[in-house]
């Protein structure tokens, strides 16, 4: 399913970041294998449009960046407090942009059209009971 809010390059980078944050690990699928990025618009449509546009262009420019660059960015965002201001603030912003989007998609219970394995919510054995009436 194509995103209306992020272009193809941005979605590819989202999957690449996603795989660094959520690699394949035991019964856990990797982020891209799960295919949850197909649902990115469900989340992004409700965030401020300017923020999503900014994140989208950032991701799109990194489409062909080598893996070590993306891993370096993730390392820097995870260690934002070690950097002087205003770099630290920008890294924290980027951390929340990338991390909250990927975490939300990965643990959303949503999956891609072609994925048939357990979702991360199945792996952690999360179920809720809602008694309606």
């Amino acid at each position, binding site marked *: 399913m194509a995103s209306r809010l992020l272009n193809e390059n941005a979605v590819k980078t989202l999957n690449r970041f996603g795989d660094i944050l959520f690699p394949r690990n035991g019964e*856990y699928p990797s982020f891209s294998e799960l295919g949850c990025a197909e649902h990115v618009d469900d989340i992004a449509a409700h965030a401020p449009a300017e923020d999503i546009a900014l994140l989208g262009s950032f991701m799109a420019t990194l489409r062909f960046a080598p893996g070590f660059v993306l891993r370096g960015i993730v390392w820097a965002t995870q260690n934002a407090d070690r950097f002087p201001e205003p770099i630290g603030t920008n890294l924290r912003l980027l951390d*929340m942009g990338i991390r909250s989007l990927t975490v939300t998609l990965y643990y959303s219970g949503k999956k891609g059209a072609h994925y048939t394995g357990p979702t991360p919510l199945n792996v952690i054995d999360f179920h*809720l009971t809602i008694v309606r009436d």
Partner: protein
Amino acid sequence: MPTSTSHFDYIIAGSGTSGGVAAWYLQQAGARCLLLEAGKYYKPREDFPLPEADYTAQLMWGGGIEYNTRCDLAFIRGRCVGGGSVVNAALMDRFDDVAFDDWKAASGVPFFSESAMEPHYDFAETQIALEEIPDHHRNNNAQLFIKGMENCGHVWKPLRRCQSDCPTDAGQDCIACLGGCHRNSKQSTLATYIPKAEALGLEVRDYAEVTQLEYGKDAVTVHTPRGVFTADKVILAGGAFGSTQVLLRSGFRAKLPALGRNFSMHPQAMNLAVFDEPVDSHKGVLQGAKSLDPGFRKRGFKLENVFAPPIAIAVLFGRVGLPLQDFMRKYRNLACIEVAVRDENTGVIDVDKNGRLHIEKKMTDQDRRRMRDGLGAVKAMLESVGAKQVIQCKMAFGLHLMGGCVMGTDRKTSVVNPNFEVHDHPRLCIADSSIFPNAPGINPALTIMALSHRMATTQAAQ
């Protein structure tokens, strides 16, 4: 572009804890009222989204979460008809005289006392169902909280929530109601005050964010994406961020030097404890007990028996990759206690040239000391009940957003007067969380309802 113009006695901008109460009281007193809400009007039994990812994105401002300018503190606030009362944990506490005395000292407002506020609390409480969580409904997380409190000699109390007819014995997991209660058990203004007011003729418009106000001699004009409306009076009820933002966008800064000042947020930090056996903190009643320790109150923090659904826990954990995945495998084995700090009101709410919020807020040395004290108490409690590991989440967040339009007698240091009117602008009133002079260190919702009742009775008497 505006599509309609209409005149009302009152326009209430924001339909949360304050706006819902004000709309009902004024409507039943005979006024013609319009309630404007930036978010959607959900029909509780039909269309609250159920997955955490969806309700967080759809029901909260910022698509789930907002940040201060340094991006080291997070804020969560509801955006839908019912506002915070739809997404909150429904804990209902009255303030004590410690909180009111500090308010009175800061503001000079004489009615800030337990006794003067009593009739308003009484009224607010009669309009909603309140239940104390009984022993047999406390889940494992609550039991561990109580045991830890007792092991360490602290005082605790059962929690009181505004709810009715929660099917706990049938297996209901209340954590889902953080995204809106699917059976209308939670006594949000969406489930209580607003439908009663609509039955009396209240008009409600959703997706109607108030972008600007024009204050005139005879009326106030309100601009929204759904049209332009006028009223004799406008009640701002957008919460600390929403109400302050509307006034800032409308150019009131020059007339009101205190506008945007004195922001506080009760910074909260989660402590997650890993146990060998499943705790299933997400099952059953979400919260069952609270700290009521005089020592904690004196030291400026309180402890919350609480938990969160998977996405929130994973985001708060902070780390990524294998450590996060491995940690989340233990989700069912986690217990949680949160520290909430009674913080100093040094934050500033501002807007940029496009009207977007900018929140300047830092934890002061005192706030950090209080947080450290609270974290120490929690660690001791969790270790005393056999936790294998205690993880302190790094990012603090605020659910109780307060100040920005504080009440007071001095127009240089406050924004609204003791009659709830914006200084020198009697057609504008505010009674929401933005008028709090400083942080009470107690759950604010019931007091917001009581203040809104007081404001509405004052208005109706006029």
